[in-house]
């Protein structure tokens, strides 16, 4: 199929996609955006998290056909003017990254959490991020990163 969609603010077109392939596949294999990671393709790890029309989704569970005409934002689209987004900097500062494979998904999920709830409590953070698996960090520093972002938001 011929697919038109907006990715990170840019109109993109894809020829020859199969309707049943995943949005994650389209992003990674067809559009040269491998920032979103494939760690399960079953909607269980959150590594592929992106925005679809402003809603946080697992892109491995969205079909290419469903993404037609929609607006997608990936981890590659969060930096502003070539500068890391403050949340990305919070992750670096806090030591929330080890192998980094879960990180893009966690960054997008955190971005979404803070957009709807700028000052989340600890239980709210835990609930929001419980769908993002990380095997390396033990999560403690990820919590620290999100807490730091929340503190920054309360100062703003």
């Amino acid at each position: 199929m011929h697919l038109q969609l907006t990715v990170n603010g840019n109109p993109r077109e894809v020829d020859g996609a199969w309707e049943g392939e995943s949005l994650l596949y389209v992003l990674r294999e067809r559009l040269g955006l491998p920032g979103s990671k494939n760690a399960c393709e079953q909607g269980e790890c959150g590594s592929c998290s992106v925005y679809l029309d402003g809603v946080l989704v697992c892109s491995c569970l969205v079909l290419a056909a469903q993404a037609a005409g929609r607006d997608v934002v990936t981890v590659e689209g969060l930096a502003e003017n070539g500068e890391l987004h403050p949340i990305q900097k919070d992750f670096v500062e806090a030591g929330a990254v080890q192998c980094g494979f879960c990180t893009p998904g966690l960054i997008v999920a955190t971005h979404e959490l803070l957009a709807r709830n700028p000052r989340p409590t600890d239980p709210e953070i835990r609930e929001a991020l419980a769908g993002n698996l990380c095997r390396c960090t033990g999560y403690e520093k990820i919590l620290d990163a999100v807490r730091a972002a929340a503190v920054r938001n309360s100062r703003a």
Partner: protein
Amino acid sequence: MGHRSYVGQSPPRREDPGLVAGAHRYVADIVVPGCLDAVFVRSFEAHGLLNAVDLAAAQSMEGIVGAYSAGELPDLPVTPAPPRAEVPPEMSWPALARDRVRFAGQPIAVVLAADRYTAEDGAELVFADIDPLEAVIDPGPAASDEVMLFEPRSNVVSVREFGAPVDDVMDSAPVVVETIIRNERLCPTSIETRGIVVVPDGDDITVHVSHQAPQRLRQSLARSFGIEAELVRVIVPHVGGAFGAKSQTYPEYIVIAHLARKLGRPVRWIEDRREAFAGATHGRGQTQRLRLAADREGNLLALEALVDADIGAYPHTGEFIAANTGWMLSGPYTIPHLHVRVRAVVTNTTPTAAYRGAGRPEAAYALERALDRLAHRLGADPAELRLRNFIDRNEFPYRSPTGAVYDSGDHAAALRLALERAGYDDARAEQRRRRTTGDGNPLGIGIGSYIERSGGQEGSTEFGSVTIEPDGTVVARSGATPQGQGHATAFAQVVASALEVELDRVSVIQGDTDEVPVGVGTFGSRSMQVGGSSLHHAAHDALEEARLRASAHLEVAEADLRYDDGRFTVVGTDRSVTLGQLATERALSAQAEFGPPQAFPFGTYVAVVELDRDTGDISLEKLVAVDDCGIVINPKLVEGQSVGSIIQGIGQALYEQVVFDEYGQPLMSSLMDYSLPTVAELPELVLDQTVTPNPNVPLGNKGAGEAGCIGTPPAIVNAIVDALGGRDEGIDLPVTPEKVWLVLSRSD
């Protein structure tokens, strides 16, 4: 005179800006034009005769470039055994099954197409005709050889013994506790699965792979294909976690490299999550029978451990991992008489290999559970029992009855600190109050003391080189290739400190055999202890060479030179020369392959749990971890390793378990079936440390990164059993609310 040292500092990790931006490349992100995608067809039977593999439908499907079983690939090499494993040739692991399948998930055929979706469809069309045979999945029954995997050969691949039988001590000892422990199989479950891309170019192949030991993989591929190692270049890009499961040469890697060479086309295989559960190696998997003897005061007299290690269908790395358990079974205690027998037994399950801790968690868990049983029997405080039996700090270096030489330690200090940080006395008082008043839920306090071994095999080395460039920058190369630990930052700290130059002047190269042809790899908590020490030595040698050159260049004795921040100055003058200038005419470089003795990090963990009387729910209220890994080079990195390892230990204690049914079918195929801890399971953690320097390496450091997997499970399970008043029937790993509830309900 300024002496720069970055030891003990936590500069920002170099990888992180690219990682948070999603900009760094892992193996599945590498774009190779014209690359074929491979999909494996795997055995659905755990044990059976493979009569035929019908590839016709797949081969004729549009878009399928090729479909192969072992029959089509007569010269396909077998999966090479790892260097240390004792693998009889008749038990070798075929890269694609021939005639016989021995575990569910074993590769039988492979299908190639220009894209993954097409290859998956092709794989669906492959039909394998298998006559099922009875499967054996438990190492105990397997050892009886009623069902054999490699008849006429016994399923018992090897038997290793430590010490000598202790029956006479057991017979006369005042107190003997016995226990049978099942240390369940776990799935390492790095979030990035396995993956490999092989690009042929004439006789050369370039292998991009998610791996812990590129130099070793290169040697092993070269040997398998009978070609010179120089023809094989292995490149490890960013790796999304490994935890031991990415250190070997897998059958899939042999198949992919073979096809790329045969077809002269690039081929890649990116494992999916379902395959990762069935096809990648598992860890742990031991049944242990322990007898621990003591006198009435609690002085340990003897330990006997009979260990059956389930190593899966083909002897591989798991064959010698079990030896680590035997090696470490006397733990941090003085045990006068010890007898350990470890049998490595094949079963119709996925082969086992290293998983974070690799044999040491199994040892620590068994011993610490047995000690708590003994404390319960004696009515002794478990902390007192441990303090009574620890090796005294003045006895190091200490030769354990298994032959391990512990370099240094102060186990009592670590335990006391852990008790203090846990508020042990208050928690015990609260426990007594609840028990006497009957108020509130059962509270338990558990201790897990451990000693581990870091550095890998005795005498194993790592390559490190340091090159000073004419512009004054420094390039460090190491064979220790990272999977997210942050080596680049920590190694730069070591080299910059040794050369007394700014940290930013040092860059680190790893993970490409063209750049670093020699090396061993990252496992066994060895990178900083062995690899870091090599870099330290190389940097010092480079600096000494520079000093010689400076003295010739400036025509003064070395004693008249002062060195500061990359510059030699003649004392009392302004005549000077920089490191960069000394590297202009002739390359200025040094290398080392240092092999220090193993080190023995140690510590004590204390868990406080509360059990829900009605539901059996386990609430981990607090976990205190006191680790001693000697001098710490980068505290933030070590803390990250500790926390990550602790959460994996919590996973083993409470959630994770690989289960096969009686036919050998794995009952977990997704992350919904295999419960990794999530952020919701993170308890209150208290981390602390004692510092006992390693006397055998220049910077005094020991390995870090596996301790949490070792100390955490016994601390938590001992706490649960403590809350249950010592009743541990049915309380095995992982301890679920159901198991707790059953014990609670039996007593109420």
